[in-house]
């Protein structure tokens, strides 16, 4: 089936200019294009002598033909297939750095992420913890996404290879393949994974688009999900949702191979220098999971420290509502 007009960035709908932001990834223009959906295509092909064959359509295998504009509709297809999503973006090694000195626990990253992936409020793919390592030490906020471990315990145990490590360092889940055994959830030491116990609540429009492991939706019941570093955004040369959503510019994201990371203000710094200057560390280093996510210690904080007493009391999430299987909600 022809479902997409172009893959190679030579289509008409190229719109990958990062909106005013530094196009740090320098990808070729990959774009949402025009596509013909099943029945419509049949119609086009059967009516050769159309009055208005005014649009050129590319098929996935590179064929070109003219089609009636009326038979086409705008379509933001997943940029890559499930098989392509397993490989990753060549030549990249994505990494994320959290400057804990800047994080004030506002949870805007979580909110941006939830909006990006159409998740319920209890699905904190990036979760902001209130940390206090010992009685005598300082408390601080710590956002925690998936660590995209280089030695990922989760992918090792998956019996069907539904979760996998890509060349570009990202650990993804193919929910079209996941059998829901939850071995990976048991194996992840960072509690980064979530399970769709019931039908996920997501906008109807989202529920109907083709699935891609790169954006993780439409989310499916009985499968796992987690932070994915927003590869579908990266492909468009944009930042992951949490990075651009952080008002404190506390999150840096970039390519370790390029040795450059950028935050929401568009400030790009040398990755290695940033780690060096701030004595960066990784979470639970002793476990040998080799996280791709780094933390800069919460030194000289510029915000009030978290109130550890409040943990559990400001629980704004209603008791497991989203788990009761309310089905799709209207957009």
């Amino acid at each position: 089936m022809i479902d997409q007009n172009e893959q190679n960035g030579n289509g008409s709908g190229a719109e990958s200019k990062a909106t005013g932001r530094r196009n740090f990834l320098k990808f070729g223009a990959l774009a949402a294009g025009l596509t013909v959906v099943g029945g419509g295509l049949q119609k086009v092909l059967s009516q050769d002598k159309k009055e208005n064959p005014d649009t050129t359509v590319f098929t996935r295998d590179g064929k070109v033909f003219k089609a009636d504009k009326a038979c086409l509709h705008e379509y933001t297809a997943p940029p890559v297939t499930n098989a392509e999503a397993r490989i990753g973006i060549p030549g990249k090694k994505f990494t994320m750095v959290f400057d804990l000195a800047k994080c004030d626990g506002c949870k805007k990253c979580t909110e941006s992420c939830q909006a990006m992936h159409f998740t319920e409020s209890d699905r904190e793919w990036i979760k902001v913890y209130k940390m206090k390592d010992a009685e005598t030490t300082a408390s601080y906020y710590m956002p925690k996404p998936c660590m995209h471990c280089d030695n990922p315990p989760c992918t090792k145990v998956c019996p069907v290879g539904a979760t996998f490590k890509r060349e570009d360092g990202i650990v993804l889940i193919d929910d079209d393949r996941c059998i829901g055994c939850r071995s990976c959830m048991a194996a992840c030491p960072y509690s980064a994974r979530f399970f769709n116990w019931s039908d996920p609540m997501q906008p109807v429009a989202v529920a109907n688009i083709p699935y891609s492991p790169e954006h993780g939706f439409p989310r499916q019941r009985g499968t796992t999900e987690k932070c994915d570093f927003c590869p579908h955004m990266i492909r468009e040369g944009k930042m992951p949702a949490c990075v651009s959503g952080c008002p404190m510019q506390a999150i840096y994201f970039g390519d370790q191979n390029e040795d450059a990371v950028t935050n929401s203000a568009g400030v790009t710094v040398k990755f290695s220098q940033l780690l060096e200057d701030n004595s960066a560390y990784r979470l639970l280093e002793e476990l040998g999971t080799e996280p791709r996510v780094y933390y800069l210690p919460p030194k000289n904080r510029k915000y009030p420290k978290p109130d550890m007493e409040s943990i559990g009391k400001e629980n704004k999430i209603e008791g497991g509502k989203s788990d009761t299987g309310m089905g799709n909600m209207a957009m």
Partner: protein
Amino acid sequence: MSKIIYPDSHIPAELSEEVIREDSMRPTMKWGRSTQLWLGFLFMVFGWGLYAYIHQLRHGLGETAMRNYVSWGLYISTFVFFIGISHSGTLVSAILRITKQDWRMPITRIAELMTFVSLCFGGLMPIIDLGRADRIANLVIFGRVQSPLMWDVMSIVTYFTGSTIFLWLPMIPDMGLMRDRLTVVDTPFKKFKKWLYKTLAIGWTGSKSQWKRLELVMTIMTIIIIPVAVSVHTVVSYIFAMTLRPGWNSTIFGPYFVAGALYSGSAVVILAMVIFRKLYHLEKYITYRHFDLMGRVVLSLTLIYGYLNLNEYWIPAYKMATSEGHLLHDLFSGSYSTAFWLCQFGTVLFPIVVMCFPKGRTPGALTVVCIFIAIGAWVKRYLIVVPTLLHPFLPIQDVPLTWSQYFPNWVEWSVTMAAFSGMVIIVTLYAKFFPMMSMWEVVHGAHIEESKRVAFEKVEHAEEINEAKTNHKKATVVG
């Protein structure tokens, strides 16, 4: 002067083949009202569980009490428990066979049957637990041998196949006998039985070469099944031990689980022995001697299991490393402490003390002890699975209440009870079609017994002469 002890008879040598066969086959000849009622009750429980499972399939695993922290619960605990029970058959049949323990004869069938049924449902539990049971074929299409879950699939399938064969092999001569006998007796389901026995007997005539081949195949199976059984529970433990989680990240999980499996499995065999002995009036065959010996077996297994428990908890408890410490606090003095200590004292220490005394190895006492052990083993599995999941490395903060605590809900209980009743259904039906004792083996055992007695009398005689010669020499012969 010392007393010469005649080895306790386990199979009364005076029983003729005819009597043994009659006693074994009698229960398969009737189909009484009580059987029907019992089966009806079991099917009701099973049907209810099936309803719960369909409910779960339709609405998703969200219908269970499992949530993102406790992502494995009662199903997986029960899975481990069932796989544990399945070690009984191997223990009694294979290990006692290879060590030439002839007293095993009347109880091998029961043990092998326990293995078979517990594997049937043990193997189902993880499938019931799957979020996408509809994609089970992915295990074949995309299967990865690097995954511990895959090891489970492979070894459980192997073990299931092996123990089905192991259950069936010694049945062949019996099936031949029952097939031939069907022509002279009347029994319910005669047509079906005719077909059934004929199929299972696969042309058994009892010729010398057939006996030889059967003996050979059984020896081979005995040797194969022991490592397979050990591997099964080892890899079951690996789905936990291969993670980094406190409480699971343990190098003794393999032997710990295997010991726990043998301990609970043999306890369940004793319970089955008690039940069938009563129901089928097998007192002549399953004697106090059997209970005494099985009691000793369970006692030694409990000692090993207790010793491994000590290692599993005392070593980390001495060190109290941070994350491990949180878990241990919860187990020792927190919300799981009652269950934990009841398990340690009630189902390990108490059985050890009781079984140390000969009186504690009589059917009555063993029934109590083994019920304790069976329940204890089950609860212990739960205590291995759940508290660890509630103690992840990073704190559980600001999540819905349903995520930070766990207790199985009606769906999980119903499905689990259905699995138990399914097991009992198979056992009941089996017992209505097949003899619960391996007839030819019991006959064989009686022969061995007889020849032993003869041999013993000779020895006794020799001893007497010897004694007379050396006058006060100690001469004790123990069976």
